[in-house]
């Protein structure tokens, strides 16, 4: 049980250049989702790896969502909400801030690489910031490589090999409760 008993670090496989990460972006309806919309309307380009999950408020983001996403096939999670002070429900994002600050530290303490969980405040007018943030997390996670396979169970591996990555990518937005995801299309990022 002592700290020193932990054995030598694992050999990290070199990251496959063709690796395309799967990123879950949890976006608050009032600011970030609108910002993502605006990015789409402005025909901004951002990586197609991100699936957007719309929630009413960042204060609604249950830390278990983040854990589930990481457990069941996502390589990174982005949580976005209104800037402090701008919350549609007055204080939701203040609660979210405290919660996520603590939760991010806990996750990284138990071994998650820094950069796999990113939290940002993005307002409805910050289409550019949304694009930049998505690009940033995609690049970071791509460099980090797939989330260590031992953290995902055999079923994920099977579903990827059996159904084919392309199929999964095409469907992931609609399945597993990830409804209301905007088309992850490179040309027009978001749209309703």
């Amino acid at each position: 049980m002592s700290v020193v008993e932990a054995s030598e670090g694992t050999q990290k496989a070199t990251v496959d250049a063709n690796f395309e990460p799967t990123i879950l972006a949890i976006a608050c309806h009032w600011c970030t989702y609108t910002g993502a919309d605006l990015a789409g309307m402005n025909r901004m380009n951002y990586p197609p790896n991100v699936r957007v999950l719309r929630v009413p408020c960042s204060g609604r983001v249950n830390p278990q969502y983040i854990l589930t996403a990481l457990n069941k096939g996502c390589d990174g999670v982005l949580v976005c909400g209104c800037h402090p002070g701008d919350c549609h429900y007055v204080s939701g994002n203040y609660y979210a801030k405290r919660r996520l600050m603590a939760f991010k530290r806990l996750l990284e303490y138990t071994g998650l690489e820094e950069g796999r969980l990113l939290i940002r405040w993005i307002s409805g007018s910050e289409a550019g910031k949304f694009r930049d943030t998505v690009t940033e997390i995609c690049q970071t996670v791509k460099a980090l490589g797939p989330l260590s396979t031992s953290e995902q169970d055999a079923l994920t591996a099977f579903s990827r090999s059996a159904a084919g990555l392309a199929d999964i990518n095409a469907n992931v937005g609609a399945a597993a409760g990830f409804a209301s995801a905007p088309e992850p299309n490179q040309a027009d990022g978001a749209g309703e």
Partner: protein
Amino acid sequence: MSDIQSQLRARAAELLSSGEVVQVIGWMDGRFENQTTPAFIDRPEDAELLVFNEYCVNTTPKYTLYEKEHGKLAVCVRGCDSRGINRMIKDNQILRDQLYLIGLPCSGVKDRKTGELLIKCQNCNHRNPVVYDELLGDAVEEPQVNRYDVVERFEAMERDKRAQYFESTFNRCIRCYACREVCPVCTCRSCFVDQVNVGWQGKQNNLAENKFYNLTRVFHIGDRCVECGECERACPMNLPLMAFNRKMVKDLDDLFAAGEAGLDAEGTHSLGTYDVNDVEEFM
């Protein structure tokens, strides 16, 4: 301590025969040498069964939840127990006037096999009860300890090694939920684990689900944890659970000056509130 024990027996008998309480929750001897087990005394003549020594490993607060229906309870409380009681009062699990708290100063509890101070007691800085109706014996000196010692050692590790260490920790979890059941803070009527059809927690025992359970548990109690260390002691697989709990406590203290939980029965907990001037790191 034997002096306190005889006082305890006498007081328990008095409380029961006067009808002030219907039950005294404390400890009694187990089958083996130096083993104790929780005791529920409801007859004055059984008060002789009560023991108080350096092997009383169990904490008492959680039992008040099940026993309160019988009437007013007398509960033996040391520092850790009393903080748990405070926390349960604050969480609206029990009312203060349902309890008669017999305060017992404690100088740490030992492992019955090794005779060493339990890990939970090595890091204890509240040996005297923080709330009680009467205190038996004299208050003991509070030790100066660095509660965050374990957390700091883990934080100093390389991420890879730490990840591997915790991965192995989660792998060894058998998900018996003893940590949940002993915890004075785990009082949800329907735990997320038991909400089978909602599907928070899968039934399979694998790394992903074990991690999900443990991290959710830690995060859910982290801001209210009274640091009694009972989860770690109860764990049949001897997992270092306080390394997680204390990490939460430490972070919340660093970030929001959360302080220690369970020192009083008022106020709120650090994740149940906010301050517009909180540190900002998500811009």
